[in-house]
C-alpha cells in the first residue's frame, strides 16, 4: 500500500516542458545578453583568424557547435562519476577527442576545408567557450539542460563569426560565399562603374574593426555596461 502512494507522488510531479521558459532562456541568453564573444569576449582568436570568408567560417561554426554540444552532453552524463581532483584533465580529454574526431572527418570528406582551417580546428580545444561551459554549467546540470546551454553558447559564437565573415568577405573580397556580388552590382551600373574592395578587411585588423562595431551597436541597444 505504502509503495503505491510513493509512486503516485512521483507521477504527480509535473515534468518540465521540453522547451520551458527556463530552458528557452538557456538558448537565447548567450545569443545577445550573454554572448560569449561580444559580452564575455571569449574565443576572439579564432573569430579573427577564420573569418576572411564565409565558407570556412560556416564549417568552423558547425564544428564548434558539435564540439560544445557533445562535450557538454558527455561531461554532464559523467558529472557524478568524474573525480573532482582530475576534472579539468577529464574535460580536456573529452574535448580533445571530439576535436580530433571533427578534424579527422574534415580530412576525409572536405580535404580543402581541412587544409584551409588547418590549426584552427585543433585550436577549438583551447577555445575558452568550450571549457568555460563545461566548468560553469555541464558539471552541475542535467544532460538535456547542458545540451541546450552548449547549443545556445555555440550559436552565440556562430552568429557573431558569421556576421564578421559576411562583412569581411563582402568588403574585402567583394563576394559572399564565393559569389562575386560586387561584380554583379558593378555590372548593373555599366562598364565604367566599379566597386572597390578594401584590403584592410582581409587582414586580421578588419576583424577587429567589424567586431568592435558589432559590440558597439549591441551595447548601445542593450545598454550593457562593464562593471
Amino acid at each position, binding site marked *: 500500500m505504502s509503495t503505491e502512494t510513493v509512486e503516485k507522488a512521483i507521477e504527480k510531479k509535473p515534468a518540465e516542458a521540453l522547451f520551458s521558459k527556463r530552458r528557452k532562456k538557456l538558448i537565447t541568453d548567450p545569443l545577445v545578453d550573454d554572448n560569449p564573444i561580444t559580452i564575455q569576449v571569449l574565443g576572439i582568436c579564432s573569430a579573427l*583568424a577564420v573569418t576572411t570568408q564565409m565558407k570556412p567560417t560556416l564549417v568552423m561554426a558547425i564544428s564548434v557547435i558539435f564540439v560544445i554540444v557533445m562535450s557538454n552532453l558527455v561531461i554532464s552524463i559523467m558529472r557524478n562519476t568524474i573525480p573532482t*581532483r582530475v576534472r579539468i584533465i577529464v574535460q580536456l580529454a573529452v574535448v580533445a577527442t571530439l576535436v*580530433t574526431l571533427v578534424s579527422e572527418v574534415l*580530412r*576525409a*570528406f572536405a580535404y580543402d576545408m581541412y587544409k584551409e582551417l588547418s590549426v584552427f580546428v585543433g585550436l577549438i580545444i583551447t577555445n575558452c567557450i568550450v571549457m568555460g561551459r563545461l566548468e560553469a554549467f555541464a558539471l552541475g546540470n542535467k544532460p538535456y539542460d547542458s545540451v541546450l546551454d552548449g547549443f545556445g553558447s555555440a550559436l552565440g559564437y556562430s552568429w557573431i563569426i558569421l556576421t564578421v565573415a559576411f562583412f569581411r568577405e563582402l568588403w574585402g573580397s567583394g563576394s559572399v560565399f564565393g559569389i562575386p556580388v560586387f561584380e554583379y552590382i558593378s555590372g548593373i551600373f555599366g562598364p565604367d562603374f566599379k566597386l572597390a574592395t578594401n584590403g584592410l578587411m582581409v*587582414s586580421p585588423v578588419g576583424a577587429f574593426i567589424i567586431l568592435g562595431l558589432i559590440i558597439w551597436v549591441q551595447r548601445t541597444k542593450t545598454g550593457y555596461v562593464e562593471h
Partner: protein
Amino acid sequence: MQQSNAYIITFSVILTVILGLLLSGTSQVLGPLQREAEALDKKKQILGAVISGDEISAMSPEEVNAFYTSHIAATVVDINGQQVTERDGAAVTAENVDIAKNYKMPAEDRLYPVFIYHAEGNPDAVESYILPLYGAGLWDAIWGYIALDTDMNTVGGITLAHAGETPGLGARITEAGVQQRYVGKEIFDESGALVAVEMQKGEGKDYSSDPHKVDGMSGATITGNGVNAMLKAYLGHYSAFIESKKSSQAVAAAF
C-alpha cells in the same frame, strides 16, 4: 566529495582506453578516405603548376583524376638524371615516391620524380616538366611543384604549400597572386649557371625586368628564404636531368 586515489586512477584508465579506442577506430574507418583525399590533393597540386587554380577548383574529383591521367606522364630519376624503375626489389612509380621521406635521405640517394605535362593523350607532345620541391619554412615543412617549359629554363608555373606557416604572412605562399609572380622567370643566367629564382625581401617592388627575382611577401621574409633555398636545392638536384633534356633538344634542333 573526496575520492580515493584508486578510484581516480581506475577512472582515468577506463576513460583513456575508451577515448583511445574511439579515436583509433575512427582513424581506421576514415583512413582509406583520407588517403584518397590526399592523393587527389597531390594531383591538384601537380596540375596547379600548369593550369590555373580556378580551373582546378571547377573540376569534380573524377574530372581531376581523368585530366591527370590523360595529361600527365611520370618518371623517376636519380641524382645523375638516370631513370629509376626499381629500388630494393620494389617497382618505383612517381606518384608513390614520398618526397618528405626522401628529403631525410642524403641527396645522392633520393628518388626524384618528374611529372611530364603533355597534350591530351599524347605523351610525346611534352608541354612542360613538373618537378617537386621540398624544404623548410619558418615553422614547418614547405613544399611545392615547379613547371619548367621545354627549354628547361622558363618557369611555366609553381604551386607552393605549407604545413604550418603563419596565416596571413608566410601562409600566403599558397595564394595564386604570389605564385603568379614566378611565371615567366628563368632559372639559368646567360652563362648557363643555375641561379634559380629568388624571392626578395620587402613587397611592392617591380621585378618584371629581372628574370631571376620576384617580389617578396611583407612580414614573411624567412618563409621567402625557405622557398628560395628549396628552389635552389631541388633545381640543383635535378640539374643532371635538366641538362640531359637540354642537350637532347640541342641535338634535335641540330637535325
